[in-house]
């Protein structure tokens, strides 16, 4: 467990406990995310990934538990589904909830995700990948200090996912939010994150910094070794090396 240095962190979680009935999902969890740091959160289903993300997002009311959470006000959340309101046009979805006239900013955000010119489209007229890009624009336009993403690419096809990875990496490099990305895809985690955290039984089982050079290649032996180590931590013993 690589204890993070006690400097200013964007997100700070101390001794977080969450229980559902008899089951303790998060069991005294500590986590720090530095400003601009990209953390990927891995874990088997039921390990508490989503519970942690929802706690950080402030979406867990009526939940039993305790602990200390320090999260800035400017948090944006990307869900697994794009969650666009079908009765609002694309641009209105992007600027939803932003006070004042944010349409110009919304237009710029849409252009940044490659959807300039689709402002007046209805969400249902877009493909799944495009909808998810609108959702990213909706996060971006808020200039978040922290971006929380709950398997945002889980429902996309493999090709679209690759393009979304590139886009997300690009956007994060430009805007530098702290990111907490929940995923079950080990490759995705190693490819995108500065640090990968593996959750097991409500605690952090593994915390690995990924220091690979910028265009990360799956063929890189270092990439492979990170991948094998993470898979092992997730309980998959056979390191599949082609």
């Amino acid at each position, binding site marked *: 467990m690589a204890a993070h240095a006690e400097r200013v962190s964007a997100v700070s979680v101390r001794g977080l406990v969450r229980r559902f009935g008899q089951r303790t999902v998060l069991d005294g969890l500590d986590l720090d995310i530095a400003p601009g740091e990209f953390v990927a959160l891995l874990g088997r289903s039921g390990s508490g990934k989503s519970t942690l993300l929802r706690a950080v997002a402030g979406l867990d009311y009526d939940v039993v538990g305790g602990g200390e959470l320090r999260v800035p006000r400017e948090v944006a959340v990307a869900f697994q589904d794009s969650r666009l309101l079908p*009765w609002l046009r694309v641009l209105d979805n992007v600027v939803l*909830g932003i006070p004042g006239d944010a349409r110009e900013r919304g237009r710029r955000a849409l252009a940044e995700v490659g959807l300039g010119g689709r402002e007046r489209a209805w969400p*249902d007229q877009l493909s799944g990948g495009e909808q998810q890009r609108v959702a990213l624009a909706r996060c971006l336009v808020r200039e978040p200090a922290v971006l929380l993403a709950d398997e945002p690419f889980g429902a996309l096809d493999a090709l679209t996912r690759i393009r979304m990875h590139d886009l997300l990496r690009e956007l994060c490099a430009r805007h530098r939010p702290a990111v907490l990305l929940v995923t079950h895809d080990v490759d995705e985690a190693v490819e995108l994150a500065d640090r990968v955290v593996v959750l097991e039984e409500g605690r952090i089982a593994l915390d690995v910094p990924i220091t690979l050079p910028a265009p990360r290649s799956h063929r890189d032996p270092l990439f492979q070794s990170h991948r094998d180590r993470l898979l092992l931590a997730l309980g998959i013993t056979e390191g599949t090396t082609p």
Partner: protein
Amino acid sequence: MTQTLAPPARTAVVPPRAAAPAVRRRRLGPGTPLPYGRAAGPLLVVALWCAASATGWLDPRLLSAPWTVVDTGVALVRDGTLPDSVLTSLRRAGLGFLIGGVAGTALALAAGLSRVGEALIDGTVQVKRAIPSLGLIPLLILWLGIGEGFKVVVIAIGVAVTLYLQTHASLTGIDKRYVELAEVVGLSRRQFVRKVVFPGALPGFFVGLRLGVTGSWLFLIVLEQINATSGIGYLMFQAQNYGQSDVIVVGLVVYGLFGFASDAVLRLVERRVLSWRRTLSG
């Protein structure tokens, strides 16, 4: 001569015949629609009616001939009877529909947006729902007499309940994920109602409107035939007493036009307002 060649020829013919139409499925669907097919049934009925009247097979005391009905309609319009009756009926139905619509929508919003409202309103309306609105007529006559107010109130109650049920169901059926999104992007309560609740409840609201408008015509017909001294129903009731089947048919045609026109208008408005849904229904 060719007979002798037949056996080999037959074997040679068989494979192509079996293979020719690769897979031809028996068509089970009804096929392409006939042009103006929907008008065919009603036109046939009118044609039969004309034929039966012309041949004298249809007793005009039971059902007047189509041309008699048209003549009577024109005469009733000329002497002002029909326009007056139509206006009276429209006022009753329109007023009842408006008041009921506003009340039903307001109640649905109150019940859908607050737990207190739900506790007070929803149960009450559900109990009312079990009692047919027409069953309230004796009590309402006792309270309000048989004037215009009574008619408007009966229609309004019926419309309000219909609109309440549909709007409330669609309000409470709004996807929880949208509520979560509204929290994440930090909508205020007012913004939440305006951007998520209203648009989300609109489809149900429109179903309620269309059922409500049909209901208001239904109540109107019943009310005007029990105790009224004016209106389309009264006109028809009088005609029944004097055995004027032509006037009765004119009244039916007017009711039909009312129902058809109001539904068409609502459908048009619905298409406009819910234009985001057109992409779903193709």
